[in-house]
Each structure stands twice: as structure tokens, then as C-alpha cells.
């Protein structure tokens, strides 16, 4: 079993709490990977901001509360490291046929390929989002937001490290090959795309960035939470620690959109005709289209509604449900059905499928409920601002590219419609190129401490007790 402790070896070339110095072979492999990673970061990260000191948090310990240390750091000097949440005494397999038996501290051969695939798929999303967001710094609405963007970026980089550590330590040569390939794929590249659809969508303005961190990172949260229940103990503990970082990304997305909504409501009232755009803001139809777009792409990330892979992963204890241990009593889930709408002979009908094969859908349920809560909060903001507008989540059948609804056409309410009806209305439902043009036209950089772009409200408070006009990024060092 890996010796993990709460104390982090910070002086090491690669900070870690996994006793890397006691495993020279792994240490060598990771040290060989390090320069390639830095090269990737330099090529595909927020390159133009590399020389600026940024007020970032860095993990220095895995203790509760003590893990985050805030200071100015230049991004290439960020201490990307390997941190696992310390193990509880006798970890067990949390779900499936072997629930309750001791967890694996090593990869069982039987599940090697499945685990590798799970880890590679998760790992691939981390650098992908950095690539998607690499140009956003140039149009940041404030130094506060710019800093948050970079915080998210460096932590996605660290998440890649966490996954690469697992690949290199537990999957031999295959793992090393996969680790290399993670640095070779490119978001949106026709020839070497990232594995999952949403991670190949362009994200070139801040409305998309906030929607991405709100909806797509939130998928990440649920995937990580499901893997935190894994019977493969190193994976469970890696993802547990990643979740603490992920929470901040969701905060950035949630509050970012909330601040836009708040500002749009102000502009709505300011304008004699209630026209937000006339005031240089982001109108609610556009916000709704953005929600529709990113929410549905993120729904796809959960995989097929009826999935033999999902069933196998659960049955073999590789991936649990959200809060498997806390929320559920029956961890085998061998009996019982799950009812979901399916399209049959041109109609939507309800169908029962075995619960295990619906595990993707069970996880998606938790995600949808979480998103609903946030939408509720945003609508509260609207209400408090005196705006009559309300935002909604579209049906999970709408605009899908994966699973049983892909290939059919639904409206945002989830009604089955014809392809002609869909195409006649899709410009009202989803982002269109003109939206991009408009957003880019209003997104001019705002780099003065305490200043915020016209289209977004300032946050209620700053980072780590600092005021909102704190110099979160030193544009000139």
C-alpha cells in the first residue's frame, strides 16, 4: 500500500504526499513526463500571461483547511503535485457484487482495461478545458475574474497530474503511453480531438466560460464523486482530493453567471425599453441559449442512458453512485428497475430497465437536481432585482448527441418534434454565430483593480479575505 500522509514533500521536484522519493522508478517516469507537460502548458495553456504574478492558491498539505496556501506565483512556476486524501484505515469496495470486501490497493488484472479507460477518459478532460480556455485572459472582465480563470487552469493541470500519476504508477507501459497521448490530443482538433464532445466545443468568450465551469465542470464533479466511491483505492483517494479543488471551479461558474444575470437585470431596468443589449449587456434570451447549449452538451458526458459499460463498472465496484456510501443502503443494486422515457415507433413512452444498466442516468439525476438548485438561486436573484424574467433548464431529451435521445429531435420542453420543426427553431434555442459576434464585441479586457466590465456585476467579496479591488493579477511584474 502506498504510504500517504498529511505531510507533503514540498521540496521535491514534484510535490507529493505519496512518498515518491521511495519509488525511484515512478519518480523517474514522472520526472521524464514533467518537461513534456511544461512544454504542453507553454504551447496550449494561457501562454501570454506566463510572466505575470498571480494570486493563486497552491496545495501544501492535504489537511482539511490547511491544504490551500495563497500567494503570488507565475503560472509556469506553479507547484503541480500529487496529492491523495489520506486513507481511512480499512477501505472497502463501496458498490457492486463485492461491496463490503476490502478495496484494491493495486489494479486487479480483471479490471485493468476498464480502469485504464475510466482514468484516461477523466484525465483527457483536464488538459482539454485548459486548451478551450487559453485565449479568455485577453478579454477578462476584471482582474478578479482573470485570477479565477487562471486558478481553474492550473488546477485542471494538477488534475491531469493526479490522473497521470495513477496511469504511470499502476498501468505500466500502457499507462506511460496513455500519459504521453494525453499531451498530444488537442481540443477541437479534427485529427486529434479530445475524447468527449463537450471538450471539443469552442469556449471563446466569458459567457461560455462561466457556463462551462457551471455545467461542464459540474459533470466533472459528479464523475469524480462517482470515482471517489471506487473500489480501486488510489483512484478513490485521488478523486476525493480533486473534488475539493473542483468546488472552486463550480463556484466560479455559478457566481459568474449569477453576476451576469444580476447585471442584466439592472440594465433591463435602466433601459427605457427594458432592452439589455441597448445598454451593452447580455440579454436573457442569449443567457438562456447559453444555458441550453452547455447544459445539454454536459448531459452527454454522463454517457448512454442504458449502458452495459455503466452496469459493468458498477457491478465490479469501479464506479459508484453519487454519495454511494452515505445515500444508499443497497450497494449491490442488482434488483430493481429504473423508469425512463424512450422513443419507440415515433412516440415517447416510459420503459423500465434494470437499475444497474441505468447507472449513468442515476448519476445524471443527481446532476440535474444540482443544476436545478442553482437555477433556482439565479431566479431568486432575478426576483430580488425586480426582473420579471425567469431562467429554466431545458429537458434532458433536448439537443443530445449521446445516448438514446441522440438522433431524435426534441424541443427544450422535451416534446418530440420533426427535424423541420427543430431546424426552424434551433436559432431560438441554441447559441448561433451572431451570438458570438455580439459577445466578442462587448468583451473588452478590464485590467484595472476594482474595475468590472459593464456586462457583469462585481462579486460580493474577494478572494481569501482580500477586497474586490485587490490586484489579483500583476499585469506588469
Amino acid at each position, binding site marked *: 500500500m502506498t504510504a500517504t500522509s498529511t505531510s507533503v514533500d514540498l521540496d521535491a521536484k514534484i510535490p507529493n504526499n505519496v512518498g515518491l522519493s521511495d519509488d525511484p522508478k515512478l519518480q523517474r517516469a514522472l520526472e521524464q513526463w514533467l518537461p513534456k507537460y511544461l512544454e504542453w502548458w507553454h504551447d496550449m495553456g494561457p501562454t501570454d500571461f506566463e510572466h505575470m504574478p498571480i494570486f493563486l492558491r497552491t496545495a501544501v498539505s492535504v489537511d482539511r483547511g490547511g491544504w490551500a496556501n495563497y500567494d503570488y506565483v507565475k503560472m509556469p512556476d506553479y507547484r503541480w503535485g500529487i496529492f491523495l486524501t489520506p486513507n481511512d484505515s480499512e477501505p472497502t469496495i463501496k458498490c457492486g457484487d463485492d461491496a463490503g470486501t476490502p478495496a484494491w490497493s493495486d489494479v486487479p488484472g480483471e479490471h485493468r*482495461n476498464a480502469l485504464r*479507460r475510466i482514468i484516461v477518459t477523466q484525465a483527457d478532460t483536464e488538459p482539454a478545458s485548459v486548451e478551450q480556455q487559453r485565449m479568455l485572459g485577453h478579454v477578462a472582465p476584471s482582474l478578479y475574474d482573470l485570477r479565477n480563470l487562471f486558478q481553474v487552469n492550473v488546477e485542471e493541470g494538477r488534475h491531469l497530474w493526479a490522473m497521470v500519476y495513477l496511469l504511470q504508477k499502476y498501468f505500466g507501459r500502457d499507462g506511460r503511453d496513455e500519459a504521453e*497521448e494525453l499531451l498530444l490530443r488537442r481540443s477541437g482538433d479534427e485529427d486529434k480531438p479530445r*475524447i468527449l464532445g463537450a471538450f471539443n466545443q469552442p469556449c471563446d468568450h466569458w459567457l461560455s466560460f462561466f457556463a462551462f465551469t457551471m455545467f461542464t465542470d459540474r459533470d466533472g464533479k459528479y464523475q469524480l464523486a462517482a470515482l471517489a466511491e471506487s473500489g480501486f483505492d488510489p483512484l478513490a483517494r485521488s478523486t476525493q482530493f480533486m473534488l475539493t479543488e473542483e468546488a472552486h471551479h463550480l463556484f466560479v461558474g455559478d457566481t459568474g453567471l449569477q453576476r451576469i444575470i444580476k447585471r442584466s437585470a439592472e440594465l433591463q431596468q435602466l433601459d427605457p425599453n427594458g432592452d439589455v443589449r441597448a445598454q451593452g449587456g447580455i440579454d436573457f434570451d442569449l443567457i438562456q441559449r447559453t444555458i441550453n447549449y452547455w447544459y445539454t452538451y454536459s448531459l452527454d458526458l454522463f454517457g448512454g442512458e442504458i449502458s452495459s459499460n455503466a452496469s459493468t463498472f458498477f457491478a*465490479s465496484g469501479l464506479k459508484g453512485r453519487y454519495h454511494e456510501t452515505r445515500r444508499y443502503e443497497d450497494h449491490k*443494486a442488482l434488483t430493481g428497475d429504473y423508469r425512463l422515457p424512450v422513443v419507440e415507433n415515433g412516440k415517447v413512452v416510459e420503459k423500465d430497465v434494470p*437499475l444497474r444498466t441505468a447507472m449513468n442516468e442515476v448519476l445524471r439525476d443527481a446532476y440535474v437536481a444540482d443544476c436545478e438548485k442553482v437555477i433556482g438561486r439565479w431566479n431568486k436573484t432575478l426576483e430580488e432585482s425586480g426582473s420579471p424574467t425567469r431562467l429554466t433548464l431545458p429537458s434532458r431529451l433536448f439537443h443530445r448527441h449521446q445516448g438514446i435521445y441522440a438522433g431524435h429531435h426534441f424541443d427544450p420542453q422535451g416534446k418530440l418534434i420533426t427535424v423541420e420543426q427543430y431546424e426552424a427553431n434551433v436559432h431560438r434555442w441554441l447559441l448561433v454565430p451572431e451570438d458570438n459576434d455580439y459577445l466578442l464585441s462587448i468583451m473588452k479586457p478590464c485590467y484595472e483593480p476594482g474595475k468590472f466590465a459593464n456586462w457583469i456585476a462585481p462579486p460580493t467579496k474577494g478572494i481569501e479575505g482580500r477586497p474586490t479591488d485587490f490586484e489579483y493579477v500583476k499585469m506588469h511584474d
Partner: protein
Amino acid sequence: MQQPAASSPAPVDFEVEPEHYRHWSVAYDGAIARVTMAVDPEGGLREGYELKLNSYDLGVDIELADIVRRMRFEHPEVRVVVLRSGIDRVFCAGANINMLGQSTHAWKVNFCKFTNETRCELEEATGASQQAYVAACNGTTAGGGYELALACEEIYLQDDGNSAVSLPEVPLLGVLPGTGGLTRLVDKRKVRRDRADVFSTTAEGIRGKKAKQWRLVDDVFPRSKFDEKVAVRATALVQRYSKDLPAGERKGVELTALAPEVEGNDRRYRHVALEVDQTARTASLTITGPTADDVAILRRGGEAAQQAGAELWALRAYRELDDALLHLRVNNPTVGLVLVRAKGDAQTVLDHDAALVAARDHWFVREVLLHMGRVLRRMDNTSRSFFALGDRGTAFAGNLLELALAADRFYLLDDSSAPVHVGLGELNEGALPMAHGLTRLQTRLYGEQDTLDGLVGNRALLEPSAADDAGLVTVLLDDIDWDDDVRIAIEERVSLSPDALTGMEQNLRFAGPETPESKIYARLSAWQNWIFIRPNATGPEGALTLYGRPERPSFDWQRV
């Protein structure tokens, strides 16, 4: 759930017309044809499964077989056939697993046999007809999808960091890649057997450069250049396969519908009749030989034969025979014994064959001969007992003698008041080989080289006793004994275990060496058929049974 078995009411029809394809489309562009697979998920032959991700069932494969056959007869100008998918990022996911899961054993076996025959037919086109198939794997190429690619002359895989070739049958389903996959990996592509072992147990497969390094594919091309690169390669192959083409204007010959008269299970074609006796569990399969007119057409040469087209006896009669055999297999599962008769005039058959051989430099005649060979191999692979009955008016000579040699036994009447003859022609001596490379005559006389040497080149008709002496006859009967002895032999045969008979016949029919093609049937299919009935695959806790279900398989660990 409905069982797609012969008990199900609708019999399977093996004749299709291109305008009615549901799953495939073909675009002809001079010497290059593009065959696009876009399986209609709702278009399954039976209820109870969806053909997602370009997965296939028997209906999909019947269309593919039709494409391959028509390509050779109707589009002889085509030198290269590019096989691609019409679905983004998926080439073909292989045989539909839900379909397999809900099928009876007999259905699975017949399905696999037919798909194997289609792939052999496709593969043969490259060498024999100078029509090279190229698999353009523009996405996930899994299981039967990769086996389809393996049957092609060259395989190209899209390199997008995701698309892989794979044979996930063993790790995922507990069965074999039974459509020639394992055989072609090591025998055809000469993938190292240890690597083939790794590959065949890695469910997610192998992609990119490694797939090329391991010779699993011929090359990988980036997604943005894929179509272009494949097109360049196809053009280059057109050059290679355009050399030394057989003679004759390469104008297609349409394969018109056979349109038999159907009455219950009986099918009457122009030259072939299949009559089924369900109670006796026998069928009678009668083929009527060519006439003097048919011989006259052939004697005018290849162009005249081509003009006769689908009406040419040698093409029409064998297409009918092929269709009858398929009906027998899939729609008449309890018929155990087929009584084969050839009617007509033995000398006319030999004349016909001689004229056919004389015209064989013509592309169309060559295709006709290749087709005859394939139909006879279909008969060799049919898991029914065949007794050839040579009584009054029999014409077991030349190509029709092949039917008697393909049969498990040959009964010949020796009656001076109604003399019958048997005769050998050139077609018995190499043009219609069995899957293992020998002629049926060589196989029959495998231990009797002297007798064989004495027969080869002998073109005279043989009296029954001479045929018997030559080792061609199993039982020679006079007219007093004929009825009783034949009846008793039939009754005895149909009383034996059908499984044991299938196994016995398949072992006895193929004396001599093996080829990759014969291995696919004798080794791969045989093992597959065994695994299919093992609890580890299809028992209540078997991997195939439980695929897609919530329970995990549990194996009986005993090695058998």
C-alpha cells in the same frame, strides 16, 4: 422475447434487389466502387433488437453478399471496392449482440456460416476476379466489423486518437471472433501469435501507429486526410488490379430474379427443384442438366455466353442451387437428409463443360466457373447428410458429378434395361476446388493415388460397374434391390443423432490438407459452435447471456 428461429413464421428470403437495400448503398465511379454501410437500426430481420452503431444481423449480411456477387457480374469494370461507413466515427460494431443473445443455437450457427461465406466470397474477389476490397475504417472497428475489414485486401484506419480496431469477443462476451477473425489475424495478416493473443483479449482494441506496427491495419491516416488518402490508395490499386485482365468486353450481366414457384417449403426453379418431406425429415434436391441448346450457346464462345447472361444454364442452375441450399439451411432446420438427383444426359453435360472450359478466358465465363465453385463449397459446408441417387435418367457427369462427389454417399443403379452413365470432365479436375484446396475427386480418392491417376484425363462415359471399380460409387444396386436398399439407407440415416452426423460428415468430407479458408470453418467455426452452447457463454450466468444485463457473468473455471 421472440426467438428468431425457424419456428418463427416468416421464412428468410435470400434474394434481394439493390433498389430495396435498407442498410447499404453503392456508388460506382469507373473502376472504383464505394460501398457505404449505414445500417438502419429499425431494420432488423427479426423483432427484439436494434441494429445500432452499424451492427449487423443476417438481413444486413444478405445485402452485403448480394453487393459482392453483383459487383462481380454486374460491374466487371470495377477493380477496387472501398468499404466504408456512413456513420460518423463508427465503421462497424460487428454482429448485433442482442440479436445473438436472443437467438437459438441453430440460428447463430447458420448466421455465422453465412457471414463467413460472404467474407470468403469477398476475399476471393481480389485474387480471382481482380476486384480488390479496401476497408476504409473511418471510426470504431469492433468485432465482426474488424473481421469484415480482415477479409479485405487492405485495411486503413482513421487516426484520431480514438478509433480502434478490436476483437472484444473473448473478454466481453465469452465467445470467439468467429467470422474468420482469429484465423485471418495470424494466417493472412501474419500478426505474431503472441501479439494476436494480447489483441484478442483487449476489449478496447488497438489504435493509431501501434495498430500499424502490429500489422493489424495497413496504415493509419489522420481524420482530415482520411478520405483523400484512401482515394489515392484506391487509385493506385486500380493500376495493380488492371493488369492481365481476362478477355471480353467488360459489360455487366444483370443477375435477374430467380422467382421460383413456392409452395409451402417446396421451391421449384427452372433447373432446380427442392421438395421437402417434413415427416420423413428428408428433402429431395433435383437439378436438371443442360440441353443441346445450352451447349450450342457455349460453343459460340464467351461473348455468346455473356449475351445469354443470367439465362446461361451454368449460371442460372447454380444460382438456383445456391438459393435452394440456403433455404434448406435456414428455413428447414429439421430436414436431416437431402437426396440429390441430377437429371439429363451425361454426355451433354460433358459437352457443356468442355465448351465452358474452352471459353474460360472470357471474364464472364470465368465468373460463372468461380460462382459454381462457391456454390459447391456452400454444399460442402451444409450440415445435412447428402445422398446422391443415380437412378434412371441420371446425369452425374462433369460439373453435376461434383454433386455426387460432394455428397456423403453415392448410390448408383446398375440396370441393363435402363443403362446410366457417369463421366468425368475437366471441371472435376481443378476448376471447382473445395475450401481446402483439393478437388472433390482427389478428396474422394485420397488414399488411392493409382486409381486417381487412371481417372484423370479419361473423358469416356463410364458404365456403372466401371464407375464402381473406379471408386466413384458408394453402393452399386441392381433394380431388384434399389428401392428397398435405398429406403432402408434413408430410414437408417435419419434415425441417427443429427449432431453426431454433422460432426462426422464435416470430418470425413475434408480429407487432406487445410487452407486458411477451411480452417475458418473446420477450426474456428467448430470451436465457436461449441463455445456457443457452453454455459460460460450462453448458460444463465454466461457472458453472452448477461451482456448488457445488470448481473456479471460467473464462469465454471474447469478447463475442458
